[in-house]
């Protein structure tokens, strides 16, 4: 009996998502006295087995699929599902990334497992018999707790679980699985991949995030937010309303269905603070809300609140930071 983690690497490295899921799997497996198996794609993670062991895996299974492309789940879903079928783990865990969210339901379907997505916590019940999964519904206004089935696939919300604090083991057992290609040409093909290489800081990793919402009122004022973020060494994002209005690219959306961020400082400018938006920033250390409306829901989650028209406040704030830096 085992807990299996599918580890997706980020630019060839064991990134935060994989560390978190392995950390979470380790603590569940320890309580259930089980092993943690970690599945990676060859090429993607074949060389990183040591790090995966340190992150919590007892065994690493390197799946070799000739035609696999990590960002196209279709190209290796069958191989992965087959590998899982051979093992039949009690719990199969994916990070809640676009790839993980695509694979999880389909792997579950192929194994006739249960599927619960977007888990915020995984807990072994006190009697040690049940695994309890908590996930938000209705945009986070309500939380639902599920008892995992015998045979359960889950995805885990980024930043919800913690990586292990100490390396687990450096030399996990490594197995190689060669997937037998099944008839016909692959039906999907990646043509071109764009990673965000914008100068400045990556949203998910930024220590400071400045975000703008519908109240910003147009694309131009985002230059102001860029300037503020620049001074604080941070990145700019926004609410879905700002994205839908065309003021920001969709890759900059923060929230339930955008990026999940966990900076030290999150500055929400002219964002009302809907539950869907706050779902993406809940783990920020300090949240500052700048809103013209003292009743805006953002002030229910913000640590520091400024009731002002951002058009007057942000320029002054920029100026004060500049003059503070000058001396």
């Amino acid at each position, binding site marked *: 009996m085992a807990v299996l983690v599918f580890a997706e690497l980020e630019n060839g490295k064991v990134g935060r998502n994989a560390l978190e899921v392995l950390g979470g799997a380790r603590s569940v497996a320890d309580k259930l006295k089980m092993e943690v198996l970690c599945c990676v794609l060859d090429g993607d993670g074949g060389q990183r087995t040591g790090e995966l062991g340190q992150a919590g895996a007892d065994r690493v299974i390197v799946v070799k699929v000739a035609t696999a492309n990590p960002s196209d789940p279709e190209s290796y879903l069958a191989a992965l599902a087959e590998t899982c079928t051979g093992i039949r783990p009690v719990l199969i865990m994916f990070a809640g990334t676009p790839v993980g969210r695509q694979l999880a339901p389909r792997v579950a379907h192929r194994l006739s497992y249960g599927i619960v997505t977007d888990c915020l916590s995984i807990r072994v019940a006190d009697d040690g018999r049940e695994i309890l999964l908590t996930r938000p519904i209705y945009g986070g206004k309500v939380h639902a707790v599920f008892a995992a089935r015998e045979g359960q696939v889950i995805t885990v919300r980024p930043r919800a679980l913690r990586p292990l604090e100490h390396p687990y083991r450096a030399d996990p057992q490594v197995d190689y699985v060669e997937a037998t290609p099944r008839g016909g040409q692959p039906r999907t093909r990646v043509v071109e991949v764009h990673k965000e290489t914008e100068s400045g800081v990556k949203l998910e990793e930024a220590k400071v995030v400045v975000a703008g919402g*519908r109240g910003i*009122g147009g694309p131009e004022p985002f230059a102001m937010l860029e300037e503020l973020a620049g001074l604080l060494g941070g990145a700019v994002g926004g609410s879905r309303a700002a994205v839908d209005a065309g003021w920001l690219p969709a890759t900059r959306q923060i929230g339930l269905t955008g990026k999940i961020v966990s900076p030290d400082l999150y500055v929400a400018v002219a964002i009302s603070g809907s539950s869907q938006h706050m779902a993406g920033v809940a783990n920020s250390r300090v949240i500052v809300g700048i809103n013209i*409306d003292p*009743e805006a*829901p953002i002030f229910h989650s913000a640590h520091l609140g400024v*009731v002002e028209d951002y058009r007057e406040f942000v320029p002054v704030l920029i100026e004060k930071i500049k003059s503070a830096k000058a001396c």
Partner: protein
Amino acid sequence: MAEPKPVSPETRNFLLSVGTGTLDWCMQCGFCTAVCPWRLAGGRLGTYFNIRRIQRLAQLGVEGFDDEEALFACTTCALCEAHCPRRVEIVANIRALRGILVEAGFVPQHLDPIISSLYANGNPWSGPRARRLDWARDLRLPRFERDTEYLLFVCCTSCYDPRSQRIARSVVRLLDSAGVSFGVIGTEESCCGDVADKVGAGEAFRQLALSNIRLFQSKGVRRIVTTSPHCFVAFRDRYPALGGEFEVFHYTEVLLERVRHGALGFARRLSERVAYHDPCYLGRHGGVFDAPRELLGVVLTAPLVELAWVREVSHCCGSGGGRLWAETPKGQRLGELRVSDALARGARVLTTACPYCVMTLEADCFGLGQQENLQILELGELLASCCI
């Protein structure tokens, strides 16, 4: 030249059937467009939004009358109606056309959060229901009881907006000094629904109105005094059709009656040059032109400054009909016209009797950089400052 578009009798009949019955009376004289204040604002809407044209296209069922930008530009100020020789119910037509879109699930983006909040919180400001009475935190506010004469209904804006809360507090102070028997219900109240009604969110309006009607009836309300002309008009003109018959007054009417009976006096007089802006909903929609002026007459030592467009032909501040939540570029706003006119006439104070007008005129006065030269005061605030 634009492509010719086909005339559709079918569309025409459909429009008539959903409440644009008076469209057919229109003879296309164009008075409405000529007097519409957007003409004077000088911006894009001044040319893009043409009410006569919208009605013409709708009359014929020709595509184009449902252009979102134009259809949601109207402030429902009813100035056009006041001039229409055929008495076309222009505002009702606009409301019905908007209603077709909104009820079918097509809500303009800027109005989406407003309508949603009306459902979620019973007010357009996303304010928690439980905090509806926060404006009166430190006042000893009488509760409405069966033997109370008036229910005081405070506009959502004055419940939640800190600037606007001063209006509600002033009105309470005045009613108190005038010895009026009044009380509030508070957190169970919902928005009067005027904004929902005017943007075409008929179902939201119906739900809000019915919940208020039930509440008022259960508490034994017979007379209502409102702080806002929008609530005043909604209760008086729109609720009866839903079974809510109440005697409705704007607070200026109630106060004036008390002044006349000598029950309310003012200790202080103002010598500043004060101008009065007729809110469209108090004046044209509500028919109350004199009460505010007479009240001002009692406290002003100098004659009231009358603006260029007043009383029945007063110009809108730009915030009715859902426009309070729409963005209009600076330099093209209706409120700027009112502020400039007041300044040109040497007024130092521009007073009005509507929370929307106050919010808009104040913002536009700031926008023009004239805040040192012209103070925007709600009439209740001005009067309260005179009753030491």
